């Protein structure tokens, strides 16, 4: 396929005087996971709603699976699996009945429904509770059922708003593994999340949204390079500190802190600096226990972007 499954240019959305999405350009290719990061109210949910053909953009264009989100709204919705911000289950229904309802809406044939619904319920550990009314489901169970609803019709494109919210670690891993599996099947996946570790783990590319526009975009490694210019590393060692080691470290990097059994230093290039540094410290008698790059996570990148753009932690209400 020589075009992205999700394509948006100059996407904008106004609600009266509120400019919820100012300008979003976005591509998600088949077999790619793109993560949208940003504070609350940054425009993530509104962007996803426009791409799901629920809201019409005020300006700009968007295509999903080659279809225009305004002109071909119904067909777009058929191609999309949407995990909404809230699970949104019908309290008096049971899981198989609930899934069957959505499968019918999405035109999943009866034999396929009969095969797929129990399999997915089993896979996500909900088969044993499928006789219970959905009102009795815990938050995590409801979230898993909503996730199943989103992937039930085997959509080409998935929009997942906080897919692991309210999930226990095991269930969250199951969902992340499923997302990777879907990516492997060639689906285009767009994930909105506040979970930076999850973003780092899943994303092929990350878009940071703020004030309704894209503030930063790139592969995680590119973003690290762009925003975390100096990595902070920590060496843990056994025994007492030896002042002779200080000279070795300062010859290659800048010491940040020395504590009980650890030394922290800053360097611009861990690949070039760490191997000779560890070798020389070991030769000088440091009993190295572990070496860890502390700033190698999305949190550092995200905070750097937020600080650079002067964004507040929460913005004013895009979640319409």
């Amino acid at each position: 396929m020589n075009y992205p499954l999700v394509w948006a240019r100059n996407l904008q959305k106004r609600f009266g005087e509120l400019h919820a999405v100012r300008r979003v350009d976005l591509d998600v290719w088949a077999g790619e996971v793109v993560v949208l990061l940003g504070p609350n109210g940054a425009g993530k949910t509104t962007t996803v709603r426009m791409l799901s053909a629920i809201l019409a953009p005020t300006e700009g264009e968007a295509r999903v699976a080659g279809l225009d989100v305004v002109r071909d709204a119904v067909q777009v919705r058929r191609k999309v699996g949407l995990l909404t911000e809230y699970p949104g289950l019908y309290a008096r229904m049971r899981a198989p009945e609930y899934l069957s309802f959505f499968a019918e809406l999405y035109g999943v044939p009866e034999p396929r429904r009969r095969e797929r619904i129990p399999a997915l319920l089993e896979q996500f550990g909900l088969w044993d509770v499928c006789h219970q009314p959905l009102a009795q489901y815990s938050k995590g169970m409801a979230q898993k059922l909503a996730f199943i609803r989103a992937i039930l019709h085997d959509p080409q494109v998935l929009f997942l708003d906080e897919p692991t919210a309210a999930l226990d670690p095991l269930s969250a891993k199951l969902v992340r593994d499923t997302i990777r599996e879907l990516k492997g099947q060639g689906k285009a996946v767009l994930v909105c999340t506040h979970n930076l570790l999850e973003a780092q783990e899943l994303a092929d590319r990350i878009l940071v949204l703020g004030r309704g526009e894209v503030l930063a975009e790139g592969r995680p490694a590119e973003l690290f390079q762009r925003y975390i210019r100096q990595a902070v590393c920590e060496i843990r060692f056994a025994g007492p500190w030896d002042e002779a080691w200080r000279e070795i470290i300062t010859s290659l990097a800048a010491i940040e802190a020395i504590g009980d059994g650890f030394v922290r230093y800053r360097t611009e290039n861990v690949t070039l600096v760490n191997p000779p540094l560890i070798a020389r410290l070991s030769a000088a008698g440091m009993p190295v226990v572990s070496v860890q790059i502390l700033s190698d996570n999305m949190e550092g990148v995200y905070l750097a972007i937020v600080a650079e753009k002067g964004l507040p932690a929460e913005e004013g209400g895009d979640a319409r």
Partner: protein
Amino acid sequence: MHGEGAGEEIRLMRVIIRRELRDTLRDWRIAMPIGILTVVFPVLMAGVAQLAVYIVNRYGASLLAERVTPFLTLVVGFFPLSFSLVIALETFVGEKERNCLEPLLAAPISDRALYMGKLLAAVIPPLLAGYASIGLYALTLRLVLGGLKLPPSLYAQALVLTTLEAFVMVAGAVVVSAHTTSVRAANLLASFIIVPMALVLQVESIALFWGREGALWWFALALGVLAIILVRAGLRLFQREHLLSRGRQGLPPRRLWQMLKEYWSAPAYAGGEPFSLRRVYLRDVPAVLKESRRALVCVGASVVMAALLGRYLAQQYPLPADLLDFPALSASTFRGLSMPEGLPQFTVPGIFWNNVRALLVEACVGALSLGMGALLLLMVPMMLIGYFAGAVEQVGGGVSRFLVAFILPHGVVELPAAFVATALALRVGLALITPHRDGSVSRQLLETSVDFVKVFVFLVVPLLLIAAAVETQITPRVIMMLYR
């Protein structure tokens, strides 16, 4: 159609209806009362009918039995329908409150299929219960009252009216549900459906007790037209975007007060210009009138229709010629004019307050009847004018002279005032099916109400005052002059 076939739309509609029906019937708070009303109420009403027959046998009031039994058929069919409102008002806004709506809005289903599916799902259970009630009532009548049979045409009428009433109520309630932000707000706005429906029922019962069963078919026709208008308006106005918006607020009366207070400052919509009579008459009132031009056209058409109807009635029911002996009128006729109780005195304050009161009542009735009440109340005096003009024409008395003498002097001021007030009242009443551009019914209701107040205070009231002065001081002189 969004590129979908009609067959696919119907399939999706059925999927929605099936789910909604299951959901409704599983909710004991709805299912149980419907069941009770369907089973218990008809038997109770049959008991009432039996009582009526007993009274007939004992006291000979045969008319009572003749009229009560068919009337109860309508009542029995209508009672379970009251639950259609509960279901319909929940349809969109209830799901929105429970955060269930977005997955449905994201599904590949056209607006029409979604809207109609929800609407039909809200109509079906109470309507079937209504039919079952009528059936049970008929059966009980036969069993309890020794084979008492009502004419089939009456059952047909009851079934048709029950069906149309259900559609009108549900269509109105679904419009409300799709354009409000909370179930509470929807319930408050439901009075705009309940009150007119109560009036409809009362008029139906009057027709039945009066022995004019045939008139009920005209009623059925009017309800059918109204149901179509409401369904079409609902479909036209249905927007997924409005359903997801939480920015719109329910607008309470205190907001009405705030909006009126803002009017005295320098609101943005007046270009920041502070309040002045110049601003009112050069900017505000013309702007509202421009906004109301379609309502004014509608009022104009209704007035013409009413006048023509009056003229037609004059031909059907002519007045005795001696009642139209205008040359016999003298100045003392007007001076010593004492009005029957309940009608205003022939003085400036008397006529002025009467007209102000009449137009305010008209606005209130209009607000609670989709504007129809306001139109009808204006049409009555217009019909009377048409009737008297027609009567004058019948006796060869010169219609133009009659109109110039009796209507034109004060009418040239009073009629525009009445037309404008009615057009504004019509807009207030129609707010239910013509939501604000942001999708909110309550906002539209509020803004049209504020427009009504502005125009009423600054245009209608002054015109009515002038008209009252002309009517008492100039009109009698013109009559004397033209008929002497």
